[in-house]
Every structure is written in C-alpha cells, then in structure tokens.
C-alpha cells in the first residue's frame, strides 16, 4: 500500500480498486463465517424454505440500497426513502378503496415514488440545498402526509393478484421478490460499472467541479439519481405492501437508516466517490443472515441491531486501527 500509493498513473483505478477488492473479500469472508456459524448454531438454518424466508429480510431494503449507493457515491444522500414507501403505500391503499386493479396499483406505487424523488431532486439540484437536510425535511413531510390521510387507521383489501408481488414464488423456493432483487442488482451493476452514466456518478462524487468542467451535467445526473431512488422506493413499497397486505402510516419506520447502513457496510464511502454494487449485495446478505440467524436463536430484533451497529462501526474502524498500529 505504501509504495503503490506514491506512483499513481491513473488516479481513478489502481489503488482504489485494490482496496475495494480487499474490502469485498473481507465482507464475503464475514458473510461465509456468519453462514457457517449459523448452520452450526441452529438445526433449522440449513433448510431451503427457511433460507428462502430469510431473503425477505433484505430484498426490499436492498432494492433501495442499490439506488442509494449511486446517490451516496455521487456525494448526496436520501433519508426520505422509508417515508416515500409510506406515502406510496398509502396512495395504493387509497387507490384500492376506489376500486383500482392490480396494474393500476403498480402504476400508482411507481408514480408516487417517482414524484417524491423528483421533489427531492428539484429541491437539491435546482435550489442547491444540502440533500441531508432536504431529505430530513421530506422524510417528515411524506410520512406526515400519510399520517394526515390515515391517522390511526389502516388500508386493507388488496386484490389477490396484487399480493403475488410480495408473497409469490417464481419457482420452488425462489420468491418473486428475490428474482426482482437479483435483476435490479444486475441492472444497477451494469449502470454503475459499465456505462458513461456510472463513470459520471464516480466523477461527480470525487470532484463535482472537475466533473462539471469535463462536460458532465452534474445537476442532471444528480436529479436522475434522486428519481431512481424514488422509483426504487416505489418498487419496494409495492413489494412490502403486497407482502403485508395492509398499509399503516408507520410502515417501514427506520428503514432509511438500515438502508444507509447496508450501503456503508457494502464499502461505499459516505463521503462519496467510491463503492461497488457487489459490495452492497454482500452487505445485504450479511445483514439478512445476521438477522435471520439470530432470529432462529430467539435473539430479539433489538439485540440484532447492536450487532448491525457494531458491524457498521467495526468494519470501518478495524482497517483504520490496523493501519495506525502498522504505522507505529
């Protein structure tokens, strides 16, 4: 690390990529370790149906996490995603009461997601406001609208065909949500790593002014990223609503922080400029496995959050402690 750092022919690739690779390997080792530990700890762990159930712990969150990863790489953040889920779900619930069918519900969910994303995007890119504050505001606003509409009530009565999005299986134990998760992961991996758009995202995150002078439409790219994050929140809202079969304004409370945790755990720098989709996929698996494995051992959910929080800090702190220790 010390010698290669000095001779950097191509600032964008070599040292960064090397470090990221080791990050993902480390994370993968953690994931495998958790998997093995779990299969020893509980006799119910290695069961196809149980493992299939476990995927529901992370699929919906991970869908948003991919879009969030791009947003964070570009140097912005969206804390309103969970509230977008609440608002989109409320809108779908209201649509059900008006007799809208399944295709219409999907359109409503996606449409509300896009609108919310566009609202965030306009505030950040057109008015130049800091995204962390804007989305803390819209986080209250979007969920607040759900509370105004629903109060302490709930929407139910989603059509049978709609619930397939959250409860359906494509083949054997492979759920629709898991397939969707895999497809979305692939799309985002291609988008981030194989397209000009993806390069632009990295460029903006590393140096927004430099990116602007090299002809990247910084504000437009960021706006698209907010749209994508909104859209993915809409997709997640459809899956979650279909899975639960009801809408309350408190739906998906606290998910924004879990999603950010997932992204950061996946090796995406919170300061922007670096990160990969593979990392986020592995982080999703790690979080899903931890939650599921501890659940099988009857460990309450809140205790799992200690593990997740410690993972988040530990995975970042350990390499830094290591380098401080080596420097001595």
């Amino acid at each position, binding site marked *: 690390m010390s010698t290669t750092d000095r001779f950097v022919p191509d600032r964008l690739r070599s040292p960064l990529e090397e470090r990221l690779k080791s990050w993902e390997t480390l994370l993968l080792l953690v994931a495998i370790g958790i998997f093995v530990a779990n299969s020893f700890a509980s006799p119910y762990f290695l069961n196809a149906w149980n493992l299939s159930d476990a995927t529901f712990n992370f699929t919906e969150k991970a869908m948003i996490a991919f879009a969030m990863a791009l947003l964070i790489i570009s140097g912005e953040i969206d804390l309103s995603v969970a509230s977008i889920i609440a608002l989109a779900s409320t809108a779908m619930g209201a649509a059900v009461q008006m007799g809208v069918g399944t295709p219409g519900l999907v359109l409503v969910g996606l449409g509300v997601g896009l609108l919310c994303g566009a609202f965030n995007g306009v505030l950040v890119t057109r008015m*130049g406001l800091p995204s962390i504050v804007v989305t803390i505001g819209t986080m*209250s606003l979007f969920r*607040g609208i759900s509370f105004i509409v629903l109060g302490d009530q709930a929407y139910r009565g989603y059509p049978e065909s709609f619930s397939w999005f959250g409860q359906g299986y494509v083949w054997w134990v492979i759920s629709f949500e898991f397939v969707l998760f895999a497809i979305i992961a692939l799309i985002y991996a291609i988008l981030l790593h194989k397209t000009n758009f993806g390069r632009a995202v990295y460029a903006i995150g590393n140096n927004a002014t430099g990116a602007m002078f090299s002809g990247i439409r910084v504000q437009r790219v960021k706006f698209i990223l907010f749209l994508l994050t909104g859209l993915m929140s809409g997709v997640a809202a459809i899956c979650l609503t279909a899975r639960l079969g009801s809408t309350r304004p408190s739906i998906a409370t606290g998910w924004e*922080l879990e999603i*950010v945790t997932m992204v*950061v755990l996946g090796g995406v720098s*919170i300061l922007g400029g670096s990160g990969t989709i593979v990392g986020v996929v592995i982080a999703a698996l790690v979080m899903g496995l931890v939650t599921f494995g501890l659940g099988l051992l009857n460990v309450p959910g809140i205790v799992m*959050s200690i593990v997740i929080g410690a993972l*988040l800090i530990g995975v970042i702190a350990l390499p830094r402690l290591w380098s401080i220790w080596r420097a001595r």
Partner: protein
Amino acid sequence: MLRRILRSREALLVSAIVLLLLLISSRFPGFVAPANLANVFNDTSPLILLAIGQMIVILTKCIDLSVAANLALTGMVVSMVNVAEPGLPIAVILVIAVGLGTILGMFNGILVWKLAIPPIVVTLGTMTIFRGIIFVISDGKWVNSHEMSPAFKSFPRTDILGLPILGWIAVLAVIGFTVVMTRTTLGRAFYAAGGNPHAATYAGINVGKTQFWAFTISGALAGLTGYLWVSRFAVSYVDIAGGFELDVVAACVIGGVSIMGGIGTVAGALLGALFLGIIKNALPVVDISPFWQLAISGGAIIIAVALNAQSNRGKGRIILKRAEQAT
C-alpha cells in the same frame, strides 16, 4: 455585515414565532396566557437542551444522530439505579446522568477524532447500539411510575417562580452556552473548526479534538435530558424519544444553523426548538389533528433550509464579483 445577517435571521424567526402566537391567540387567547406559555416552554425544554448540543456538533461539520438513543439509555440507567437504590439523593442521580451521557458522547467523539470515521456513520452505529444496550440491561421491561421514588419524579416538576426546574435548566443552559460560544476560546474554536478547518489548523486549533469536545458536550446534555425526560414522564422503556434526533436536527436547521458548519447560534437553536414546540402545543388547541404535526414540521424544515440557502448564496456571489474586479 455577517453579524447583521445573523441578527436578521434570528429576527425573522422571532417575528415568525410572534406571528404564529398572534394567529393562535386571535382565536384562542388562553394560549398566550403567561402560565400557558411557561408550560409550552417547559414542554419544549428537552428539545432546547438537545438542540444546543446538536448545534455545537453541527458547527464543527459533524452530526450527532445518537442523541435520542443516548437520552433513552441514560434515562433507563438512572431509573434502574433509582429502583435499586431509592434513597440516593437527586444530586447523585444528576451526576450519574451527566457522567454517563458524557462518556457516551466521548465514545462518538473518539471514533470521529482518532479514527476519522465520518460522524454520520459513527452516530448511526452508536444510535442502534445504545438502543440495543437498553434492551439488554432492562430485558425489554418498563420502569413504571410506581417503581420510581417520589423525589426522583418530583425534581424537574418543582415550581420556582412559575416555571418548573426543567424549564429553568433550559434557561441556564441557554445562558451558559451563549457565554461559552461567544466568550471562550473553546466556543470560538467550534466556529473556526467548522467554518474553515484548514485555516483553523493553521491557527493552532486541533480540529479533531474540537469535534471531540462538541460530541462530549452533546452527550452530556443528552444524558442530563435523559434523567429529566424519564422523571417528567415517569416512565422508562426502550423506545422513549424514538426518532427524536430528527426533531433535534430540525430545530437546529429551522434556527438557522448551517449543516455545512461554522454558522449558528445558541439563540437560533433556542428559537428553532421553540418554533417546533409551539406548533406541537398549538395543534390540539386549534383543533387540528395531531397527525398533522409531522407534515408541518417537515414543511417548516424545507422552508427554513431554503431561506438559509438564499442568504448564503447572496454572500457567495458578492465575493466572486469582488474577486473578478480584483483580477
């Protein structure tokens, strides 16, 4: 120039609050009766205390999302101490609360200072860890009113000159921290470290250490508020003050504290908190469903940050023009 902008921003907020009060009082004169206003202030005191700490953290370009979890953990610890040792004087309870809060804040601070982990990651992590620890130590059980000793519950509610001690603590904190922020080297270091970290370093300020002290102060205030919170509501459980960290950040933003660091005052944090507190207390009075509160405070945050950005943008343009003329 700068002072005038800061003044006018707070003046704007004061007029917004006065306007809000006038609007409410035009239909419900009882709301602006001194006794009720004292009640509203008292009710907002926890938010004011946390907003002061948060303001200092944000000044140094950091953010502390763990304040509410810190509050809940400290609250649970002191109420369990109270259940175990009901005879313990309140002074000792206060020392435990502030001490524990300080340690938790220092933990955040040390991670930010020594390991240079981004503050949002650190406090996101410690937020979930603190909540989890509450569950572990309390076994998920509640500490209820009848288990707490009378002295433990009555301390923040004791009236002095028409305002309970809880409110007086907020008053003292506002005065004390105004002095600290404007009249001490540490206070000025907070502004310098956030306003321009490089310049601050050259001026001999250790930026990391300054951030550490900001987290420590935020933690101490959260710990103090933890005791006040559980004794005022006479209950303690895992989820108390859940999501309150965002209210605290909102109060700061409404109070004109710049999330980019370096700009903000104790008075601003106080006014931002009061603005939210008045809305919260006024909604039931004017017969609007409390379910509106979340959306209103969300809207207020967006408007406030848009106004803040407007005044900052003007400043930037002027500087650019001067630079162009100079060349």
